[in-house]
């Protein structure tokens, strides 16, 4: 792998064969070519490398919820409390090695009580080392580069004759600090030593924040069809239900991640209008999405995460199974959930009042999840509506322009053309004058509207308005705004 740099083309990565002929990372390509003319090169693609690493990191979520990227080519896994699920630390490492080897990656592993020690072990160890809690002194023989300090500090330490971690540790702290030019440099070296021993905790930046309600299922045999996925999901939902019920909680979103044997992952998720944990209801919402899971050559692990966990305030509605197998739900929320998960956002809504005298602003669409208090809101609204002129029951989202003829200026219309059809008006009432809301920004240019309720010769009723007046510079314009019953 080569990259174009200001000082010529340099090697960024070598494989085993190239390493044998003496090529190394950081070497100029011309030097390497001189040593081995047959060297094959490819352009390095940092973005693709990073994407691949992220993919592997996602796949590593099967072992633990806390996975972090470590540099350009490393992953850091916090397997505290997870190893026993895979039969111990050793077999977890073997499993990891086997899986990565199967998809063509060579991997060097290290397991240690602190992140820094594990990093050092993986980079400079034999590739499958495990350090016990009391065996940190085994790292004393490692070179100081294993501490992950930057080049200048490594160089300084080497100049000081401190080539191994053990040498560094043996030195008294005060004596060590005096050797550095600045306090900052001394501090950074001291910090890595403390991190190595675990005296100072090192924060791990996980790619996904860990979820408290996460349920994993490892399968003995890979699954290749969606029927099996449904069964696995049900099993996870049951265990999730137990945990959530014990804590009196429900979740408003569920994510199901399937881990494929070939290292890929695919995920589906659903959302709910209220916190829930009911197995049948959630499974029903997942059902249409199950085919979206790519089973590939087989899925061998599932993780179900419950997000937006909240207390469940009321009893869940029961789902009654009828004799013919269809379900009838006595609550409305399951219906709303089914529809909102299937239809595009904003398709399901309830109508809420808004205190405005401008017709199109007098109602708002509210998500039906928030519709619990609507009845009171509308009752309050109804109190303010006494003596208001009739309103149409269907309102156009955008008032549609019409050409109107009135018998006298400022009089009611007698004829109008709308959508290329001429309507002869036989009855009309009005005008009802509605002024713009002057207290709102941007209302200066909006004309006063005069509304008329009209009926045409066929008995269809419309709500027309005239924007502007005849005595203004611009002639008034007419619009059809709604339809009456």
């Amino acid at each position, binding site marked *: 792998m080569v990259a174009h740099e200001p000082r010529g083309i340099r090697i960024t990565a070598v494989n085993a064969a190239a390493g044998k002929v003496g090529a190394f990372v950081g070497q100029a390509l011309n030097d390497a070519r001189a040593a081995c003319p047959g060297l094959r090169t490819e352009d390095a693609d940092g973005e693709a490398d990073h994407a691949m690493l992220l993919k592997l990191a996602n796949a590593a979520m099967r072992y633990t919820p806390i996975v972090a990227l470590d540099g350009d080519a490393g992953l850091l896994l916090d397997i505290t409390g997870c190893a026993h699920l895979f039969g111990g630390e050793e077999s977890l490492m073997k499993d990891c090695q086997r899986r990565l080897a199967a998809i063509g990656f060579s991997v060097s592993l290290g397991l240690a009580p602190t992140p820094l020690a594990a990093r050092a072990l993986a980079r400079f160890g034999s590739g499958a080392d495990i350090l016990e809690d009391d065996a940190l002194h085994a790292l004393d023989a490692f070179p100081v580069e294993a501490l992950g300090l930057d080049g200048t500090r490594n160089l300084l330490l080497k100049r000081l004759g401190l080539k191994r971690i053990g040498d560094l540790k043996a030195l008294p702290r005060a004596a060590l600090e005096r050797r550095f030019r600045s306090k900052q440099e001394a501090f950074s070296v001291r910090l890595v030593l403390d991190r190595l021993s675990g005296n100072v905790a090192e924060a791990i930046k996980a790619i996904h924040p860990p979820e408290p309600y996460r349920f994993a299922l490892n399968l003995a045999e890979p699954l290749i069809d969606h029927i099996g996925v449904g069964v696995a999901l049900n099993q996870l939902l049951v265990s999730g239900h137990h945990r959530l019920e014990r804590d009196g909680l429900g979740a408003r979103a569920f994510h199901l991640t399937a881990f494929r044997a070939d290292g890929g992952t695919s995920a589906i998720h659903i959302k709910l209008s209220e916190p829930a944990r009911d197995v049948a209801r959630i499974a029903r919402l997942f059902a249409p999405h199950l085919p979206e899971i790519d089973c590939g050559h087989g899925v061998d692990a599932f993780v179900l995460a419950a997000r937006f966990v909240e207390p469940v305030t009321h009893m869940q509605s029961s789902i009654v199974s009828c004799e013919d197998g269809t379900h009838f739900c006595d609550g409305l929320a399951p219906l709303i959930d089914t529809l909102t998960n299937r239809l595009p956002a904003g398709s399901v809504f309830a109508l809420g009042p808004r205190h405005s005298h401008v017709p199109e602003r007098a109602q708002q669409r509210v998500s039906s999840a928030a519709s619990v208090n609507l009845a009171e809101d509308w009752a309050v609204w109804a109190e303010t509506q006494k003596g208001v002129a*009739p309103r149409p*029951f269907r309102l156009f989202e955008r008032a549609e322009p019409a050409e109107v003829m009135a018998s006298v200026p400022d009089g009611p219309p007698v004829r109008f053309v709308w959508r290329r059809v001429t309507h002869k008006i036989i009855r009309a009432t009005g005008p009802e004058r509605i002024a713009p809301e002057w207290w709102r920004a941007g209302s200066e240019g909006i004309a006063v509207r005069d509304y008329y309720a009209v009926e045409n010769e066929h008995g269809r009723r419309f709500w027309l308005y005239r924007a502007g007046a005849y005595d203004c510079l611009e002639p008034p314009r007419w619009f059809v705004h709604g339809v009456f019953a």
Partner: protein
Amino acid sequence: MSVQTHYNWQGSQEAIGLLRARIAKIEGRPAGLSDDGQAKAWTCGLDGLDAALGGGLGLGALHEIAPALPVDLPVASAFALGLLARLKRRGPLFWCMSGMTGTEYGAPYAPGLAMLGIDPARMICVTVRHPKDLSFVLEEAARHSSLAAIIAEGPLPSFTASRRLALLLASSGVPMLFLPDGKALQGSAAATRFRVRPITESETSFDSRSLDPRSLDPHSLDPRSPGPPAFHVTLARNRGGRPGLSFEMVFDHASISFRPPGLAPFSRAQPDSVPNRQFSVESAEQRRAWAS
């Protein structure tokens, strides 16, 4: 050994009742529609139409309310809302609009709905883009017995789909009013089909609006103002009754009832009960119960 049989008269009546209910279920008759046409509560308030329907509209059934012309869809929906204002079932009203009916004919507007006697807080609206989604949404809704009623606007489903809907509605007991947008290509399994067009009050014999002393609407005193909604309704299909009858009627906002046009309102008998004209705080409690 002899088997002694006790004939319990009351018990056998009950058994016969249960068997009748089972037969009705097998035949796919709407749950509210019993053999002798009893136990029907959903009336129009217009004696002739109610009699033609055999006492009223069936709950748990599919009713088609077809506009005579495509542009009459708002009129058909006004007729449907008038019927729903008279429905005594509690629970939310589910209004499903398909494709462009919302933009073409106007979206539901709560202040106007309230004036028709429908509590806007009960309304749950769904817009779907694809006809395939429409039948999915309607079938899901038809399963939920907590809904008071379903209004659907859009292309008519196929005969099979409408039959599925009718069966689901019959088991859940929810009525559905389907407003077809466009020509029907196939038959449907609807129990009734109304064909609705508007009429002007000049077609009616006598306009009594200005004589109505109970009217609170100041505009109703103006003889040139549009009157109450007036419909010409043809009963194009009527399962278990005579089809083909036509009726002219207006919807009276004050009493929430259909009445013949031109009849002086104060000479008309008041209906026994007026459904959901008032939005009470009690309905907020109900709302919470439905939401759960």
